[in-house]
C-alpha cells in the first residue's frame, strides 16, 4: 500500500466517522459542516496529489507540503474560534437559565410557604 492510497483511505475514514457522528446525533449538523468541508478538501488533495503542486506553485509556495500544514492550521483555528463563540453563547444562556430558575423557585417558595419578609404586608 503506498502513501497515496493510505491518504485516500484515511480521508474516507475521516469523512465516514463524521457522517456516522451526525447520523447518531452525537454532532449537530451546524457544527459538522466545517469538519465535512475539511474532509472533502483533504480527499480532493489525496486523490489528485498533483493538484497540491499546482496550487502551491500558483501561490508561490516552494515547498508544496507546507501548503497542507497551512490548510490544517487554518481549519484548526477556524474551528477553535467557532467553538469559543459557541461556549460564550452557551455560557450566557446557562446563566440566564439559572437566573430564571432561581427567581421562579423564590417566587414559588414565597407563595406556598408564606416565607415572606415579616415587615412586608403585600
Amino acid at each position, binding site marked *: 500500500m503506498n502513501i497515496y492510497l493510505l491518504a485516500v483511505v484515511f480521508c474516507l475514514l475521516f469523512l465516514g466517522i463524521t457522517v456516522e457522528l451526525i447520523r447518531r446525533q452525537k454532532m449537530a449538523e451546524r457544527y459538522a459542516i466545517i469538519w465535512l468541508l475539511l474532509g472533502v478538501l483533504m480527499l480532493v488533495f489525496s486523490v489528485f496529489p498533483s493538484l497540491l503542486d499546482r496550487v502551491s506553485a500558483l501561490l508561490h509556495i516552494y515547498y508544496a507540503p507546507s501548503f497542507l500544514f497551512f490548510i490544517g492550521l487554518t481549519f484548526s483555528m477556524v474551528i477553535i474560534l467557532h467553538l469559543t463563540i459557541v461556549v460564550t453563547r452557551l455560557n450566557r444562556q446557562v*446563566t440566564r437559565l439559572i437566573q430564571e430558575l*432561581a*427567581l421562579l423557585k423564590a417566587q414559588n417558595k414565597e407563595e406556598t410557604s408564606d416565607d415572606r419578609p415579616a415587615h412586608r404586608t403585600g
Partner: protein
Amino acid sequence: MRLLVIIPAYNEEKSIGDVLRSVHHHHPEMDIVVVNDGSRDQTSAVARTTGLAHVIDLPVNVGIGGAVQTGYLYAHRHGYDVAIQLDADGQHDPSNLDKIVDVIRRGEADCCVGSRFLEKTPYKSSLSRRAGIQFFTYLIQLVTGKRITDPTSGFRAVNRQVIRLFAEYYPDDYPEVEAVVLLERKGYRVKEASVLMHNRAAGKSSITPIKSLYYMFKVSLAVLMTRIRNVS
C-alpha cells in the same frame, strides 16, 4: 416611590445578618433582596432567618455579574423605581444609603456611585489598590471624558431606566467599571456621592493578588470594547 436593595452574597454567613439588620434599621421602607450566588455556607439560611429580606438562591455559582443581574431582573419584574446595590460583607454602610439614593430621587442622575475618594474619608486602602482604581479613573476619562473617582465601587443606586437596561445586559465578571462605561456610552447620567466605606467585617476579598492581573486586563479590554461597540 418603591426602593429595592440588592445584596449579592457569596459565602457571607458571618456578615449578612448584620448587614440586613442595619439596612432595615436605617431604611425600614426599603425592600431587600439577597441573591445568594451558590454559597457553600449558611448565607441563605442566615438571611432567611432575619425575616427582613427576600432570598433568591442561585443553584450554582454564576459569578458577581450574574448574581447582581438577578437582582436587577427581580427589581424590573416587580416594578421598583430605584435599585440599590450593596455588598454583603459590611463594607458599605447602610447609614450612607440616602447619600446615593437622594441623587436618584431628585432626578439628578440615572446612576449614582458611592465614592470613597470624592471627599476625604477615613477609608484606607493599599497603595496598589489605589493605583489600580486610579488607572480605571483615567481610562474612563479617556474613553468617555467623564471623571469617576471610584469606578470599582459596588455601592450604587440606579433608576427605573437603568434597572431595565441591566436586567437585559450586565457584564459577567468584575462588572462595576464596565457598567459605568456602558451607561456613559448610552447617554445615561452617572454621578458620584461621597460615602464612607469600612474595611471588610468578615470573609475575604474576591480579588486575590493572582487574580488582580487578570482583573486589570479583563476590565481594560471590556472598557475599550464598550467604547468601540455599537451600544444603541
